[in-house]
């Protein structure tokens, strides 16, 4: 009956897998795919130079990250979420509802949003107005600007006679992504407000204005290419007619394959974004659950590594990866607030 003994032992191992409330000995990080390349580099450096385990990082998009992060306090929930935009009030509320009350906000630097295409195609010269007209779901009727109609533009030439006659085909991130949020805010809204009709609408009906400026067209001209910015780069390479929307760091890393389009005459370069002359740039963040800092081993070390000059400084290794460093004073202030774990005030 040896065989049946073996079987008994085998079925016993089923019992061993009962749900366990086990402590976690590694940091769990989720969030934005824009911050992912920076966070992974820091995590790897930290893991290799310290005795604690390397943090585990999943790239889930800023919105998805906040959802997991705000799920609750405890080892089942992530400790840190990366985000390519500031946390929203609605998210702070979700967090608080689930018991996540003390959140430390860390700003790590800036990232420009680039609109780029393959190097094999000619470079685009765009303005924010062009982008709004090309990508909004509803635009003011050219004949009667007071009326909003479904976006009629098919080619870039329709939008602006100076642009080439290519079909509008833009690969960009979905709403879960912080890049999308930032793009909508920085490009679509400001682009819309250069139009008289939209300005009038803003005064008349705020809600309709938000909807009109933030809704991206769904007729195939704007292709939601998933959270993975790498994928967008790869797809641009194989499709020279398409434009892609992604973070500057990806443009920087893939400078031999894709080229950034100029926006209002400024090309997306490190210096132009750092001095603020390139109009589409945004800060990057990560958020830490204070309740976890003392519990999960390595949290303090990871935070210190991220906030060190050799990481996020002007000459740091994150700058090599395409992160645009904050001004010195801001960096110093932020490093102090990281060291003290300054909890953010409710907005």
């Amino acid at each position, binding site marked *: 009956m040896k065989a049946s003994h073996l079987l008994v032992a085998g079925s016993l*191992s089923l019992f061993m*897998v009962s749900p366990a409330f*086990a402590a976690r000995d*590694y940091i769990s990080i989720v969030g934005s795919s824009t911050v992912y390349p920076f966070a992974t*580099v820091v995590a790897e450096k930290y893991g290799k130079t310290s005795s604690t385990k390397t943090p585990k*990082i999943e790239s889930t998009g800023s919105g998805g990250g906040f959802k997991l992060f705000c799920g609750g306090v405890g080892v089942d929930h992530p400790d840190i979420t990366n985000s390519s935009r500031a946390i929203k009030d609605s998210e702070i509320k979700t967090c608080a509802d689930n018991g996540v009350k003390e959140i430390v906000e860390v700003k790590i630097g800036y990232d420009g949003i680039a609109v780029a295409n393959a190097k094999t195609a000619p470079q685009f010269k765009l303005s924010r107005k062009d982008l709004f007209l090309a990508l909004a779901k509803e635009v003011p009727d050219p004949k009667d600007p007071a009326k909003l109609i479904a976006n009629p533009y098919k080619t870039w030439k329709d939008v602006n006679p100076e642009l080439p006659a290519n079909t509008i085909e833009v690969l960009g991130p979905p709403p879960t992504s912080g890049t999308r949020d930032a793009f909508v805010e920085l490009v679509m809204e400001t682009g819309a407000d250069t139009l008289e009709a939209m300005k009038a609408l803003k005064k008349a009906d705020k809600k309709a204005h938000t909807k009109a400026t933030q809704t991206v067209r769904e007729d195939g001209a704007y292709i939601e290419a998933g959270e993975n910015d790498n994928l967008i780069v*790869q797809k641009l390479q194989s499709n020279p007619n398409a434009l892609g929307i992604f973070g500057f760091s990806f443009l920087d890393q893939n400078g031999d394959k894709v080229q950034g389009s100029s926006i209002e005459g400024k090309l997306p370069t490190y210096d132009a974004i750092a001095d603020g002359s390139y109009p589409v740039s945004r800060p990057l963040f990560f958020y830490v659950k204070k309740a976890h800092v003392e519990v999960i081993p390595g949290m303090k070390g990871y935070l210190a590594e991220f906030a060190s000059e050799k990481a996020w400084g002007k000459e740091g290794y994150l700058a090599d990866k395409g992160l645009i460093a904050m001004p010195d004073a801001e960096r110093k202030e932020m490093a102090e607030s990281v060291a003290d774990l300054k909890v953010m005030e409710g907005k």
Partner: protein
Amino acid sequence: MNSPEPVNTMTTRPSLLEPGKNLKKRYRTDLWFQRIGITAIFLSLAFIALLFFQIISEGYTAFIQTNILLEVEFSEQAFAKENLATADYPGLIKKSLTDTFPEVKSRNGKKLLFSLVSSGAAYKLQEMVEANPKIIGTRQKMWVAAASDVDMLMKNKIDRKAPEENRRLMDNQLAWLDILKSQGRLEKQFNQTFFTTGDSREPELAGILGGVKGTALTLFITLTLAFPIGVAAAIYLEEFAPQNHWTDLIEVNINNLAAVPSIIFGLLGLAIFINFFGLPRSTPIVGGLVLALMALPTIIIAGRASLKSVPPSIREAALGIGASKMQTITHHVLPLAMPGMLTGAIIGMAHALGETAPLLMIGMVAFIVDIPGAITDPAAVLPVQIYLWADSPERGFTEKTSAAIIILLAFLMTMNSLAIYLRKKFEIKW
């Protein structure tokens, strides 16, 4: 090809024995058909050859790595105040490089110069110092990994002739590399890193050990669960089960499960094991459970086939001398059927080894650097590592992906040959 008329000729011709005009034509049709058949086979074989050629020619270069010989001074002052872990190791590398090329002064030039050496070099220094603190205060010559771009250049995957702005290495970087090369300080060597480390964001530091270990842990779980359960189920269905609706239901069920898309098993794992039982995400234990459920039908079907092949005379003989049914099976039938069952289990494991889709569903796609040590550590498995690398933009990862595929295929080949060997060695012709 001629149109197939023979149907009519067969019925209208009075005698087929009489050679007619059509006979040649009919044989020609037959020949043509034979040729088409063999073409079909060779098309498939050609594809296999093409796939292997492509993967191997793309991936073999990952097993060698370009290294740079550096002379590093472990000056006392660099280790003066700090403890060993926090010393400025990248600074030592940078100093060594500026010593080699003292003419580089500008900030930008230095940045370009430093980018020739992999960031992994600093970790190597740290390991050396921590292993042997006595080297502080000495000068050491050592080979360190070059950056991925340099590696790609040495492997002719970057075109030197391309215009500078379309190239990842600048003209002056090329000049420095040529100097290093002429001094014999730039060499391609066996890539040990690839076999000893886990994932990394730098292609030259990325290795597959994490994936291999994760795969081993996952398959361990799969085997310990699926094999005993599969064998037991096969024994029940083949030897004990009465012919009724229940047995029919189980049989139909198993055959259906064998053909259910693997991604569905991933959904099962996500809903049941992670969300219901609260098992930790991204861990071999969840992966192993899901793959075990997936491999189970294969093992059961193979087990039944091999039980069926044991001749009834064996059973009758054992029963005849007074053994109980259970004794007959455990003492006689099972040992004889075991080689066949093992073969089935190995084939099932080989399928599980190559499976990716269900693992995507249970969070096993994450950046995991550490080599997993237990079934509850976060881990990536080999196919998922391949998937992650295939999506990475750095050119260095293309060859790593192909190399990881070579390793995966090697494992699969080994498992399948083992299965064939077992079958050949223990096959009993009754």
